């Protein structure tokens, strides 16, 4: 099985007509059976577009595709590819009203006729790939992100694709499940499938990939075996220059002796919910001028904590104090009290896909941009343009946000929330969808805000991001908070074990 070419793309070109961006320029790519091929590049390099083309979802302007059984002129015909390739998108697009089973067979012709057989096919696939624990009759709307990612994986494997395309999967295979992801990748390779992994996490590339292709501005820069390249080379090829990163710049605090009064204080918060998604006796203090990181799995309390702090969920027990006063219970009250907030749900809560870039950017500033209730159009134009350039958002101010890539959407949110002298900033997964360089820029920005006196609560589902960015850090697992200590003094393995819910003796259940 090994070393057979499962799919090869030749001379693919594609221009997005709405934005005039050439996403693919003479791109050729070979995928081998039983091999994991990583596709890396900056935001907007054309990786996702290429994935869509390979999966037959998008018709390019030109290009050829050879699969083991067929050869297709992509410009004329991309049907039939669905039999051979499966794509797992960065953002799940399953209709919320369907069940997982219904969504998994959507749009396919080779589906068992009986519902019973579809269910058993789903369950059998789940068992084969050791992804059990998902009921195929659950509604998509009731699934959390992590389970949905697993369900999509099962759906992709149900029909035995030769080629599997994964677009930025690691953001949802969170810490603690990371090992499951690696295991799955290995199993896929052993079964002789070709895997294309679209990612911006170079750690993944060097730990699990066999080959790596770098794209920049729509062109392939290099394509090599992982053994023949290294982190620095790939980074340079991705960005075109050697990036210069400042030192991480953590603040050191002596023990528990913090200066001044706490800005935000949680006193014995308790929330009941289904299963392990609960909060129990959760207490912490957040001081001005520090980054307190809380990391863990979303469904083990992190999402719930975010909802409580952002006023989207009432607590059953305990209280939340902001500047010595109880926190307002409504979202609008919290905004008035000075909360700035980057939510983990970037496109449902953090932005409006059907609205324009301008409308998304200005929501907190409408008072300053209007006079007696009427907008000042010229002022808005200038205001938006300045910020758009400052943060590097590609796309015009009048474009609908849904036409932008994930990274650009995140930049829109970031520019809005990471601004000025906010007394309190809650930021969940700040580097979502961003490439390495943008990620660094965001981290620098967050530290600047901290140094100017903002109290920052970081809710990170990525352990490494929490370790890197936090001054003090704690792990949230099973609804309980571990001890809070300086991020430098955390042992990564111990933190990972805590997240995965293992007993280690220190502060866990």
């Amino acid at each position: 099985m090994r070393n057979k070419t499962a799919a090869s793309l030749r001379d693919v070109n594609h221009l997005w007509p709405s934005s005039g961006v050439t996403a693919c320029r003479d791109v050729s790519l070979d995928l081998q059976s039983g091999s994991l091929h990583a596709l890396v590049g900056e935001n907007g390099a054309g990786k996702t577009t290429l994935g869509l083309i390979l999966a037959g979802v998008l018709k390019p302007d030109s290009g050829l595709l050879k699969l083991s059984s067929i050869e297709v002129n992509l410009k004329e015909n991309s049907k039939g590819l669905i039999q051979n390739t499966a794509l797992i998108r960065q953002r799940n697009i399953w209709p919320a009203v369907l069940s997982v089973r219904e969504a998994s067979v959507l749009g396919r012709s080779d589906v068992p006729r009986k519902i019973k057989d579809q269910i058993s096919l789903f369950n059998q696939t789940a068992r084969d790939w050791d992804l059990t624990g998902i009921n195929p009759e659950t509604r998509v709307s009731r699934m959390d992100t992590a389970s949905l990612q697993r369900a999509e994986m099962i759906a992709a494997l149900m029909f035995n694709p030769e080629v599997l395309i994964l677009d930025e999967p690691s953001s949802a295979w969170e810490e603690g499940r990371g090992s499951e992801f690696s295991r799955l990748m290995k199993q896929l390779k052993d079964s002789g499938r070709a895997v294309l992994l679209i990612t911006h996490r170079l750690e993944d590339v060097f730990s699990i990939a066999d080959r790596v292709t770098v794209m920049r501005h729509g062109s392939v820069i290099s394509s090599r075996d992982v053994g023949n390249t290294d982190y620095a080379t790939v980074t340079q090829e991705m960005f075109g220059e050697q990036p210069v990163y400042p030192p991480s710049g953590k603040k050191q605090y002596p023990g528990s002796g913090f200066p001044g009064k706490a800005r935000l204080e949680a006193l014995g918060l308790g929330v009941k919910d289904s299963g392990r998604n609960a909060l129990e006796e959760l207490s912490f203090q957040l001081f001005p001028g520090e980054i307190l990181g809380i990391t863990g799995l979303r469904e083990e309390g992190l999402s719930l904590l975010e909802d409580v702090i952002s006023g989207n969920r009432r607590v059953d027990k305990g209280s939340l104090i902001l500047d010595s006063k109880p926190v307002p219970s409504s979202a609008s009250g919290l905004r008035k009290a000075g909360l700035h907030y980057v939510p983990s749900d970037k496109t449902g809560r953090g932005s409006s896909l059907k609205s324009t870039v301008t409308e998304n950017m200005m929501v907190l500033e409408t008072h300053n941009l209007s006079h007696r209730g009427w907008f000042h159009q010229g002022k808005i134009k200038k205001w938006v343009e300045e910020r758009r350039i400052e943060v590097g958002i590609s796309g015009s101010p009048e474009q609908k946000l849904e036409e932008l890539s994930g990274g650009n959407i995140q930049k829109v949110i970031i520019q809005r929330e990471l601004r000025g002298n906010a007394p309190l900033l809650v930021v969940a997964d700040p580097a979502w969808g961003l490439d390495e360089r943008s990620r660094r820029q965001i981290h620098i920005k967050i530290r600047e805000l901290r140094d100017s006196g903002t109290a920052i609560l970081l809710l990170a589902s990525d352990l490494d991001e929490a370790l890197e960015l936090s001054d003090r850090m704690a792990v949230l697992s099973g609804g309980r908070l571990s001890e809070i200590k300086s991020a430098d003094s955390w042992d990564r393995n111990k933190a990972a074990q805590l997240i995965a819910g293992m007993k280690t003796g220190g502060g866990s259940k």
Partner: protein
Amino acid sequence: MMPLKRKSYSVSFTALAAAFLLALLTIAILSGNPWKAMGYMLAGPFLSPMALGNLLESTARLTLAGIAASLAFRAGLFNLGGEGQALAGGLAAAAVALYFPEIPRVLALPAALAAGLLAGSLIGAFSGFLRVMWGVDELISSFLIAASMGPVGHVLLNNVMKDPESYLIAAPPLTDNYRLAALWPPSRLTAVLLWALIVTVGSFLFLKFTRRGYEWRLRGANERFARYGGIKTGSIAIASLSVSGALYAAAGTAALMDGGQAVQGFTAGLGWDGLAIALIAGSRPELIPLAAISYSWLLQGTRAAMMHTGFPFALSGMVQATVFLFVTARRFSLKRGRI
């Protein structure tokens, strides 16, 4: 989960064109004199100053109803209670005319209109209030409240407000001080045209250039995002349904002025016609008058064809049904795959 996708920005004048075609086709097939019938269907509303004036009056009334439905749509809300709100508005205005017949003209008309607007806006606001307080879906509550207005109107017109000298289920005709001047006799064109113009321009400016209008639109585009951005989405639900109810009531009051008397069923159809027009125009105020005049043309044309060729009256209902079918089909059809 929301039961329906509550966005309607797609402009579907194609639905109207399709309905026109279907009506023409039906007439051509069934009528004894197809050419004459089709001629009346297309040109009927423009053949005399009276027909044209009546077309404009009906357009103005339907514009009010269309904007009423649109404003709720744009704030992400379904107001299915237009029928009841229009009736309540018309009845409230008629009640003022009935119980204060002698007040001077300068006060009479504004008082009647104000009573109408108040009645409609209260009914609309009530649905908004139910939604904010207990999460009652306004799609259901507005429809149910409207449905209950029908019998209420019947009782009022048949007992409390009934004209003792008439065999109709009706209130007495309006006294002269409550009548809008005819602008273009013998047609029934009145200042309602001006009301429609003001409301159209006003709502266009409101949505596009004001902070509140932006907040309404943002609520319509993504309610969770609007709430997250510190916008008081609950107040908007109440305010927009209240304004929507008031505009439906204005359309109902216009219907009262048009007929000069509150007769059983005098506002019937305004609620549904308003929704159809809002859907045709993609809920964009600047396109509502165009949708309203095409829609009126279609209805009046069918009526003209019926009157001149003895065609069955049911055709008008069929044409309306076709418009609805096409508009909604477009709305819920799957869009071509976009990534």
